[in-house]
C-alpha cells in the first residue's frame, strides 16, 4: 500500500476513536429519545391497553440490554487501540469457544419465550370468547368514512346485502328483515359505555380499512366479504379519535371517526335520541 504501516495505524486509531465515541453517543441519544418521549403515547384507556403496554416494556427492557450491550462492546472495540503487531489467532471452528455466542443466545431465547408467553395470554383473551354481556356495535368501512350501526331495541342486527347499497342506503341494509327495522345507522361517531365490554363487528363495503383505536392499543382490519371483530372494555371516559390504519385510497389520511366513552346511562339516552335507519326521511 502507498501509505506506510505506521501512518496507517495512527490514522486507524484516530478513526477508531471517533467511531467509538460516535457509537456510544448514538446509544445515549437513542435511549434519551425513547425515555424522554414515551409519555407521549396516548394514555391507555382500555383493559387491554395496560396489558399490551406491559409486554411492550418487557420487550423494551430486553432490547435496551441487547442494544446497550452490543454498542458498548462495539464502541470499546473501536476505542481500544488496535493490536500493534498481530491479531490473536483463533482458528475458525473450535466449538468450545462457541459458548461465547451460544450462552447469550440462550438467554435471548429464554427472553423470547417469556414475552411470547405473555403475549399469548393477551392474544387469547382478545380472540377468545368475549364476555356474554358485551355491548354490541357494528362498523362498516367505506372510502372514507365509518358507518356505525347499533342493533336497536331487539338487540339483533338486520341483514345486509351489497346489492342494496346506494347513496341513501350506505351499507345495503335489507329492510325486509324485521330485525333491520330498528337498526340505528350513524356515520363517524360511536358512543360506548365505560366499564362494560364492547364488541365491535367490523366490515367493509369496498376496500380494506383498519379500525384503529390508539388509546385502546388495538386495531383490526375491515375486509370486504368478511366480518372481523374486536372487543375491549373502555376504562376511561372521554372523546377519542378513531383512525384508519390500512391504506385505503386518496382520503386514507383523513378517514377519521369519533369514539365517545361515557356512562352506560348516557349512552342509552343518546341512543334513544337517534332515529332508526328505516324511519329516516319519513
Amino acid at each position, binding site marked *: 500500500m502507498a501509505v506506510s504501516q505506521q501512518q496507517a495505524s495512527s490514522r486507524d486509531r484516530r478513526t477508531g476513536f471517533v467511531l467509538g465515541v460516535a457509537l456510544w453517543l448514538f446509544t445515549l441519544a437513542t435511549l434519551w429519545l425513547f425515555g424522554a418521549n414515551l409519555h407521549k403515547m396516548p394514555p391507555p384507556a382500555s383493559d387491554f391497553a395496560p396489558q399490551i403496554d406491559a409486554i411492550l416494556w418487557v420487550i423494551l427492557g430486553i432490547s435496551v440490554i441487547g442494544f446497550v450491550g452490543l454498542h458498548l462492546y462495539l464502541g470499546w472495540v473501536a476505542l481500544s487501540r488496535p493490536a500493534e503487531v498481530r491479531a490473536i489467532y483463533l482458528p475458525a471452528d473450535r466449538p468450545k469457544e462457541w459458548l461465547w455466542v451460544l450462552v447469550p443466545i440462550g438467554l435471548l431465547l429464554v427472553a423470547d419465550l417469556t414475552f411470547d408467553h405473555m403475549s399469548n395470554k393477551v392474544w387469547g383473551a382478545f380472540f377468545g370468547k368475549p364476555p356474554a354481556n358485551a355491548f354490541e356495535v357494528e362498523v362498516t368501512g367505506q372510502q372514507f368514512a365509518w358507518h356505525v350501526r347499533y342493533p336497536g331495541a331487539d338487540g339483533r342486527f338486520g341483514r345486509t346485502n351489497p346489492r342494496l347499497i346506494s347513496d341513501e342506503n350506505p351499507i345495503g341494509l335489507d329492510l325486509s328483515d324485521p330485525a333491520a327495522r330498528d337498526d340505528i345507522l350513524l356515520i363517524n361517531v360511536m358512543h360506548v359505555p365505560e366499564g362494560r365490554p364492547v364488541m365491535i363487528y367490523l366490515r367493509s363495503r369496498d376496500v380494506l380499512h383498519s379500525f384503529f383505536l390508539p388509546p385502546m392499543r388495538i386495531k383490526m382490519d375491515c375486509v370486504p366479504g368478511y366480518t372481523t371483530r374486536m372487543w375491549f372494555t373502555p376504562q376511561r371516559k372521554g372523546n377519542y379519535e378513531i383512525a384508519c390504519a390500512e391504506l385505503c385510497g*386518496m382520503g386514507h389520511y383523513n378517514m377519521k371517526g369519533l369514539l365517545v366513552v361515557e356512562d352506560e346511562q348516557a349512552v342509552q339516552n343518546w341512543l334513544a335520541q337517534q332515529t332508526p335507519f328505516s324511519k329516516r326521511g319519513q
Partner: protein
Amino acid sequence: MAVHAEHLAHAHSESWIRKYVFSTDHKVIATQYIFTAYFMALLGGLLAALIRYQLGWGDQASPLLERLFPFGAQGGVIKPEFYLAIITIHGTILVFHFQTMMLTGGFGNYLIPLQIGARDMAFPVLNMLSYWVFLASCVVMLLSFLVEGGAAAAGWTVYPPLSVHAAAVAGSGLGQTIWLLSMALLIVATLMGGLNYIVTTLNLRTKGMSLMRLPLSTWGVFFASVIGLVTFPVLLAGAILLLLDRHLGTSFYMPTVYIGGQLVETRGGNPLLWQHLFWYLGHPEVYILAIPALGFIGDIIATFSRKPIFGYRLIIISFVVMTILSCIVWGHHMFTSGLNPYIAMVFSLLTILISVPFGTIILCYAATLWKGKIQFTTPMLFAIGFLSLVVTGGLGGLFLGTASTDLYLHDTAFVVGHFHVIMASSVLFAIFAATYYWFPKIFGRFMSESLGKWHFWLTFIGVYATFVPMHVMGLGGMMRRIYSPHAYQYLQQWVPWERVISIFGLILIGAQLLFVVNFFWSLFKGRRATDPNPWRANTLEWQTSSPPPHLNWGEEQPVVYRGPYEFSRPDTAEDYLPQNTPPVGVEVSGNGVR
C-alpha cells in the same frame, strides 16, 4: 474446465458490442447490474425526498414543485394520489430493483465465479438474458408515471381490492397493470439469475474448493437464491391472478363490493389470498436481502480485523435455519387481517425465534472483532455501522413479531422505522461496504478514502436520526402511509417531529451525492490498484489481476488448499494466507495465478 489458449485469444477479438453490451461475461453483466441498480437507487432516493418534503412541509405550497410536476403537484402542493404513487414506486424499486438486484445480480454475479475459482457462470447466456429482462422491468416500471392515472398507488404490497379497480384509487388504472408486468419481468430475471448462482456454486467450484471453504459472500448469495427460487414463483402466480382479476373478470381476490358509486358484482373471492401469496414472497424477500448482506459483511470484517471469522460453521448453520424459518413466518404481516388467531400464534413464535440465528451471526461477527488488528477503512466503517443497525432494527422486530404488541404497532411508523433501519439502512450499508471494498477489483482503481469517510459519517448519522425517531412516533400511534399528519388531533404533537425527521432525511439523501461523485471520479481518476490484492485478503477474487481478465484466470484455474479466512496464523510470516497458496513442500505445476 480447462480452457485452451485458442479460446482465450478468440474471446479478445469479439466486437465491442459483444464485449460490453450483449456480453456473456459475468463480470460485465455484474457491472451492468450495478450501474442499473444504482441508477434505480437514485430515482428511489429522489422519490424519498418528495415523501419527506410532503410530510415535513406538505401544508406549504412550493412553486418549484409545481414546475417539476405540473400534474402531480398542481398549485405547488403534492396531490394525495400522486403521494401514494410516490410511496408505492419508492418502496417497489428500492426493495426489488435496487437492493435485490444489487446484491444478487450485481455483487453476487461478480463474486461467485471469482470466489469459487470458476471461469464464468454455468449458464452465461441465461445470465445475460437475466440482465436484459431486468432492464426491461426497470424501464416498464418507470414508464408507469407517464400513463393516465399515474403509477400504481396501492403501496408496494398492492393489496386488493384497492389494486383492482381504477375507481378505488387513480393509480389502479393502467399504472397498476404496468406495475404487475414490471414485477413479472423482474421475477423472471431473478429466477434466471438465481438458478445460475445455485448451479454455478454447486458445480463449478475449482479443485479443492469444498463447500466448507466457500467465502460467506458466496454462501449468502447462494442461500438468497434458494429462497428466491422457492418463493418468487408464488408471487408471479399471485400477480398473474391479479392481472386476471383486473382484466378478465375473474374474482380470485374480489368479493362483491361497492366501489366509486358502483356495484362490482363478482362470484366471490378473497382479498386475504393476495396477502398470503404476496407475503409468502414478501417476507422471505427481506432475507433474500439480509443473508447476502450478512455474507458480504462477513468477508469484510474478517479481512479488516485480520482474524478468521468466529464460528464459520455456526454461521452457515444459522444461514440454513434462517433460510427455512424465513419461508414460514409470513403471517406476521397479517396479525390484524382476520387471520385465524391460532395460526397467528404459531407465526408469532416462529417470527420471534428468527432472532436466534440472526443474533448468533451478529455475535459471531462481534467476536471476530475481538483482539483483532482492526483497520478502519471505509468498507470496515460501513461494516461496523451495519452491525449497529442490524441490532437496532432486529430488536425492533421483536416488538412487531409479538402478536399482541403488533395489534398496536402494525401499520404505524414503528414498522416503517423498523424496516428502514434493518433493510433500507443496514442492507444499504452492506452494499456501500461491498462497493468500497470490491471497487478496486472491479474497476482497477480505488475509491477515495477521505470522501468515503465523509460519506460514511453523514450516512450513519442520517439513518439514525431519520429512522429511530420513527419508532417513537409509531409508539405514539402515528399511522404509516398517510399523506398528512394534520388530520388527527392526537397526532399534532408529532408534526414538528415529522419536520425534524425530514430535515435529517434530506441531509441523508443529500449525503449520497458524495458517493455519486466519489464513484464517478474514482472510476476515471482514482488511484490505480496496481496490487491485485490491496487489502491482503485470502479469497480467490483477490488472487487474479484487477480487473480480472476475460475468463478470470490465466491458463489454469486456481487450486484451493484451505478455508477463506486464514488470517494472522502464527506459522506464517505474513498475516494472511490466500486460499490458493500451496502449503510449504507441495509441488505445484502453476496454480493459474501468476
